[in-house]
């Protein structure tokens, strides 16, 4: 089974939940799909055992020696990426329109390193992750790569736990597609409900089974009720409601999963949610 923990919105507690799951099932393979700002390795610390450069895009290069400064390339560039016969790398999408019109073949498309993929051996098993070059082009391919690297360590069809990406764009699609189950972490706020609806339609689009849990449910119990009602109408099972708990922040800063804190009420509920998922998995429902 591949389980992705997802939220639509950032900061709802995906990583808190995913890190705890990772600890509760150490033989599972962990994948951090939030390649933009990967945080799972901060909690699951360990030693990097493999890494490789990731070529995520192509970028136009102008050979100064050949360029006759005719300006045709900047005329056809629709991304405003060529000024004064120079490529502005952050804006170039590597589309090759400039290359097509250059009368003297001064333009080539070069591979661009947009990140690094890393395998970390943590206290809670293998973690596949990546670090992206700041401001690089969308990371769907990188997410796919990170998932592929994780597969190399999957010997006996172990569980896979994926920490998803915020949003609904290309990286998110790459982290959902091909998963069996998506656990959506919802915060009981107006924004949280909005984003939940958006991510749910995306999960449906990919034919993945959605499950939900509500994080910090007690900061707004009316909204929690509204979300539960919405889930009921949409036939999405709510597996648990995690209470607001200051120990969560303490756990982040002490770099430990929150389930390691005996007296954490949030940790206890996350554990219940995991046991519920695991039971369903063992019974073959998931």
């Amino acid at each position, binding site marked *: 089974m591949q389980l992705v923990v997802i939220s639509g919105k950032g900061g709802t507690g995906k990583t808190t939940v995913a890190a705890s799951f990772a600890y509760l099932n150490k033989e599972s393979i962990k994948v951090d799909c939030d390649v933009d700002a990967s945080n799972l390795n901060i909690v699951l610390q360990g030693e990097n055992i493999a890494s490789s450069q990731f070529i995520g895009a192509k970028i136009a290069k102008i050979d100064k020696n050949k360029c006759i400064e005719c300006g045709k390339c900047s005329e056809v560039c629709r991304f405003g990426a060529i000024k004064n016969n120079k490529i502005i790398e952050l804006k170039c999408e590597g589309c090759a329109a400039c290359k097509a019109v250059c009368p003297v073949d001064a333009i080539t498309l070069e591979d661009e390193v947009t990140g690094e993929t890393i395998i970390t051996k943590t206290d809670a098993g293998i973690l596949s992750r990546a670090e992206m070059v700041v401001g690089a082009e969308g990371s769907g391919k990188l997410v796919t790569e990170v998932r592929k690297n994780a597969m190399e360590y999957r010997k006996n069809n172990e569980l896979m736990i994926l920490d998803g990406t915020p949003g609904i764009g290309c990286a998110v699609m790459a982290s959902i597609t091909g998963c069996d189950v998506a656990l959506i972490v919802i915060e009981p706020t107006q924004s949280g409900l909005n*984003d939940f609806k958006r991510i749910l339609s995306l999960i449906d689009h990919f034919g993945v089974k959605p499950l939900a849990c509500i994080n910090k449910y007690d900061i707004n119990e009316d909204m929690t009720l509204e979300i539960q009602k919405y889930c009921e109408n949409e036939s999405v099972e709510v597996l648990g409601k995690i209470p607001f708990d200051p120990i969560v922040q303490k756990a982040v800063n002490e770099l430990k999963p929150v389930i390691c804190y005996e007296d954490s009420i949030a940790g206890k509920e996350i554990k219940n949610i995991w046991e519920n998922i695991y039971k369903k998995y063992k019974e073959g429902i998931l």
Partner: protein
Amino acid sequence: MKIAVLSGKGGTGKTTISTNLAKAMGWNYVDCDVEEPNGFIFLNPKVIKTEQVSIPVPEIDPSKCIGCQKCVNICQFNALAWANKDVLLFDKLCHGCGACSLVCGYGAISEVDREIGHIDVGNDEQITCMRGTLNIGEPMAVPIIRDLKKMIGNEKTIIDCSPGSTCSVVAAIEGVDYAVLVTEPTAFGLHDLKIAIELVRTMNIPFGIIINRGSHEKDLIEEHCEKEKINIIGKVMFDKDVAVLYSKGKLLVEHEKYKELFLHIGKKVEGEIACSLL
């Protein structure tokens, strides 16, 4: 004058900071987090205009196409393929770059608009608000952000960005006068803040930090900023009331103490921008 509000990490309070700053200072507000635009929930403007956002995609005239496949070969995005003596278009992959029509020597390719999302323009009592929304299942946010940016006038405007540091954020902060980086005092917050700092430095944008959910003690963000000589322009204390107000979709500046705080931060931002122009 444009001020971008960004954060390496999701959920640090970008929208809280940007909507409250806009309201307190009477600045216009633009929601560039087109995958998850939430600012209108808090500002609740009356929407007066909605515009579709499209990108141009190729349309092939089979009567003119001779099957040379130049268009298929030039496309860097695999949006065109050649199957069964026909050019196939995968429109979701098309970036609208126009390379295919440039290389077609037979005038077989024209362009038609394909909708990928929309932009709403609205007013509250004193400010103009805009937001972009990306249609679900669409991979590319940047064209919507670009269109939004074109609609911004000369008034003071707050730009609410998407989380992270991807191309969407680059498109949103390009050409702004100042960036406000919102973070929270946790190990995650600091890790992601460093990424955001690297981005604004790469783009030569002057910036300052706002710590959200702070405490009265010195935290790890303040220590980092002191060491790196980075300016902290405000701190919003951790307060369960804030979380409750946010969850109800309410602005903080409806309370006097927060109104003062945001006025103070806004003035500081104006001062910083004035200094950066010297």
